[in-house]
């Protein structure tokens, strides 16, 4: 029995018996790998010991793999279905041309092609794809769970006022957030203990690159608010902040939020 066959069979066996790692260490379970990987795809090895990214030297731990189906990727990557990409393997010599598997990878190099680093690998199959899809969905909820855990205060409410803030940046800089305050009338407290029925959220108005993605609340915004203290290390703000787009959740997500709250 060849080493390759051992790995594939072991992977199949492990997957069937509860979604643990295909090989190598320490991939963990399929959900673990799906969480850890930025790019999960079903692929077919085209060339072993090869690379189609010029700055990544071909070696026995690289392989050119055709992407047959993307199972998880950031939208910003674009559609790479049908493309050949280079995978830097966890274990040298562990693939042969024609091998088909689900690759759990992280992005590393983006040149004339894509170079990814393998986190784990599992034998392809409908059950596995279903596991991955479930894990990917679960990963999104897991992220939200973590964000809820980190939040100092989670409330549902509406912005009733915005006003200049007393907060100042440490100096005059092009990255000055130019703070303002939004006053939120709370109707539901989901986590934490606000002192009053209204809470003040400090937010940046600057369009500088450092703050461009931050929500800029306006009067009438009605949402679930994940509010933080000391949200960003080194950004000294005395009030609550909600600096990331996902710090605001739609009211529709209230059941999910309730379910995920500790």
């Amino acid at each position, binding site marked *: 029995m060849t080493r390759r066959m051992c790995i594939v069979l072991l992977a199949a066996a492990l997957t069937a018996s509860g979604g643990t790692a295909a090989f190598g260490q320490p991939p963990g379970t399929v959900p673990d790998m799906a969480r850890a990987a930025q790019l999960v795809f079903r692929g077919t090895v085209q060339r072993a010991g090869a690379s189609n990214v010029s700055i990544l030297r071909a070696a026995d731990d690289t392989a050119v793999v055709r992407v047959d189906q993307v199972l998880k990727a*950031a939208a910003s990557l674009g559609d790479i279905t049908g493309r050949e990409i280079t995978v830097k393997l966890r274990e040298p010599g562990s693939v042969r041309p024609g091998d088909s598997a689900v690759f759990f990878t992280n992005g590393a190099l983006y*040149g004339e092609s894509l170079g990814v680093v393998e986190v784990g690998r599992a034998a392809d199959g409908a059950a596995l794809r279903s596991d991955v899809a479930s894990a990917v969905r679960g990963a999104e909820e897991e992220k939200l769970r973590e964000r809820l855990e980190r939040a100092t205060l989670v409330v549902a409410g509406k912005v009733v006022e915005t006003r200049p803030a007393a907060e100042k940046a440490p100096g005059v800089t092009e990255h000055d957030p130019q703070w303002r305050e939004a006053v939120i009338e709370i109707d539901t407290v989901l986590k934490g203990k606000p002192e009053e029925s209204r809470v003040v959220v400090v937010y940046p108005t600057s369009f500088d690159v450092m703050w*461009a993605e931050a929500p800029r609340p306006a009067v009438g915004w009605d949402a679930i608010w994940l509010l933080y203290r000391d949200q960003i290390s080194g950004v000294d703000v005395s009030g609550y902040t909600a600096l990331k787009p996902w710090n605001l959740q739609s009211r529709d997500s209230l059941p999910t939020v309730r379910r995920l709250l500790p």
Partner: protein
Amino acid sequence: MKTKTLLIATGILLSAWLAAAQAQVTVVNMIPNARSAETSQDSEPNVAVDPANPQRIAGSAFTPDPLGGPNAPIYVSTNGGLTWTLNSILPGNGPFGTGDITQRFGGTSHALYSGILRGGAGLRLHILRTTDFTLPNVMTILVDRNSVDQPYVQATTVLGGAGIGFDRVYVGNNDFGSAPHTASIDRSLDGLGATPPPPSNFGHFPIETRPTAPGVNQDGPPIRPIYHWDGTIYAIFYGWRAFTGNMATTDVVVVRDDNWAAGANPFTALVDPGDLLAGRQVLTGVRVPWANVSQAAFGQERFVGSNISIAVDPRDSSRVYIAWADYPGGVPPYTLHVRRSDDRGVNWTGDLITVANATNPALAVNTHGRVGFLYQQVVGSPQRWETHLRRSANLGGLWNDMILANVPATTPAPQFIPYIGDYVHLQAVGKDFYGIFSANNTPNLANFPQGVIYQRNANFGTQTLLNLSNQPVAISIDPFFFRVVEVAAGDDFYVRDWTDSPASGDTGLEPSTHPIFYTTSDVWNRRNTNPGTFPNDQPENQPAGNGFGIIGDNWAFARIRRNATSSATQTVTAHFLVSKLGTGSNYVDNTVMDPDVVLPGADPTVTFLPAELGPKNTPAYYWHLNPVNSSHLCLAVEISTPNDPYVAPSLRGYAPGWPVTDLRVLLDNNKAQRNLSLSTTPAGTPRTRIRAYAIAHNAATFPRTATLRYTVDPKTAERLAGGAIEVLGAGGATAAAETSLPLETSGTITIPDLQPGENRWIGIDVPAPAGKEGEVLTVDFQDIVLDQPIDGFSLGVRLGTNRDAIGDLMELHRSVYTRLSAGFGIDAAKTEADAADEAKGRGAFSEEDYTAFLAQRLPAMSHIDAEIADLKSTDPFATEAELALLNELATRRETSDATVGAHVSYLNKLDALLTLRQIEQGDVADILQNVRWQRDLYIRAARLAGLDVAGKIVQTSRAWVAAYEIRKANNRDYGDFLKGLLQSFDDTAKELGEDLPGLTAEVQAIESAVGSGNLAALQKAHRAFLLRLQTLDAADVPAN
């Protein structure tokens, strides 16, 4: 359809590439093909070229990790910028990547240093390092600090002197923790050795010395350092004095450090004459707008006072350029200014150029002294962003204008500010300029007048970006890399400064990367027209022969290469020069009228067919060394073609490194020199010592405490244990050695108060080592100025067979006695020279032959030694003692392994003594130095500068030096030149009669020498006059 689109794109790319190649300009959209779908606003770019391998280039912009990973990417190219790959190795990744990134490579280390504000972490500074920027390994965090803005990195590697091989890293930053003096520099003197935890070995130094703007208590955001290889560090910043919220009133301040910022009070070398505080206020009361919102009237960009730049001339650390932006008089338009200082930042020109409605100035100076000025300007209606590269070859007088991009400024809509960035970058590596800018990425060739290459999918016919599935992609802001090749690779010929092995040698990089650039270079001498062989890929140099007729005939060779083919056959001209062995000795060529060195022929040429890369040897270039001259010489070559001239000025009349720390051999791959003297000893078990000498000449135009550093390979040092380094030859000294230091693996020799043109002799006194035939053991000396080696030489021994050693000794015997005979009128010496010549002719190099020769010749040698008592009236070399030793050994009938060394040493000493006596009579090699010295004295010494005649003398001297440097004047004109100044000299003498009594006699001596037609005597008389004037010069000049 898909195929057709790709063909269209490919065809357009090809034509763009050809057009760019023709223009020697390459512009590349840096977005990789795999990122064809991206629409990010990749603004505020920066670029770093590895000086040790310009194919390796790192870029950066506000580019996020494509998969939303935890690290942000840099752009990596390993093919000179033609293609790029994103490599996510910057810790932290915000929605738009990382913040405020700049990058720079070490000089020879290949390490990449970055300064960033960590993505998604506010004003959190990281200073980072990777030793291989192509690997997907996150960079090491060396410094980690909050409340910092705009880290701007510069890095280099110490090429020689103290700290050789260490990476120096300087990161300008606006540190709010240092308020009110926020303008700061973080510095590491050993970047590669920096080891976390932060701050590793970095020091933090505020460089502001004045009160800052009340209320905000800070300086402006940009602090930009720059280095010179001699250890000079400059930095520029806006020293804010008032801030209203929408306008800063600021000084433009330049600080300087003269020794790598390694001292206790770094960056304080440049003091403002007004308030005597560190930091020259180049301008005060400058008004800089502050509007941290997108400006519709300024191409959607903002005003945040971040637009300054500084560059130093690699040929001269005293010459520095700055650029800044302001509202002139406090009113629009936003305007860029460029100025220059030629005296290390003390005095500044007016504006060399101004550009209205422009931003993002970036300056760089290449090894030709050409200054590049990159900026982006808003023009027209509807507005467009034009990216210009202007270059000036005459110190900013005239500027060539090249438009790299002319793109819409109104689209796309900003995703954030800065729209195109608060800075761009320009870097010169060797002769070439490399830069980066961000711009609208519409694939329209009309937008890129120099052509453009896209890696991402694009259809230039429909002016549409395409994703990997060939679907349209929205227009966005992309980074564009460019390279301007001043000398195309196919035109760029070079002579190696060093070769270590067939697999390791100089590839034409500027500056050259090997600290010893004068012992294995590809310029060499032979005693016949055969260039010899190349063991270990190194030429076999033969010591020059001196004498009448064919005995003094020599042939010079150079080996020439280039790194790329060209489309046409090209002819390279090689110009050879020689100087006395040592450091600081000025080179002479066929125009200098040195009576003893004759280089009569036309410069040889080498033809390179289009496909030829070399190496190709020059034809043998005949030159002749007259009998009066020492055969201990340096040999240099300057090669040129119409497309690749050497960097002016020539070495003619100069020594490398003078009058400034221009490192002209290191910086110019068209120049090379060999500066090495070896004495051959038997390789067996010699029982003797070798003493050999070279000159240390003060080639400066001011008195100088010379510092020479020597290094010896540790294994060599073990074999030379018991050796010594000597300094000899101070005027009137009779001691055997004024300074004698035990030989270590390295050491420093200090020679105080060397007057311009004054000499010392540096000697080695080492036991002849045992070893293998063919081995070469050297002591390498470097001439240090401002802690930087500007020149060097090597003394050492070559181990050979007994026959080799005796054969070379016979030639040395012939050479020195020929010289004594011809140059000093010692008739008996001719007999000695003939005897050695006859022995050489017979090939009488056996042990028996030599013993017999020595027994026969020693009585005559002793007789001659007595006859030259006058020459030995002061004999710092103690020749007599060496001859006595040789006599003693011969009397004891010692074999050659004991006697050869003493014989060689005696002859080396005698040769050095003869050179000392010869130079005392004047030296035509120093004529240009005299004139430069004269010019500088009448400028520098207040007493002289105040004389009525000063203007005429300075102007006339300047004109003569300028004419000399372009070969419109030479030593033949020296007499007439001085004759024209005699009246001015006389007036000087009369004016200074009280201070310098008897000066008139010096003028009369010049007049007399002019009449004699003896150029050496004229140089001597002129120097004597200048030496008197030198006593009036109390100017603060660099002593070391």
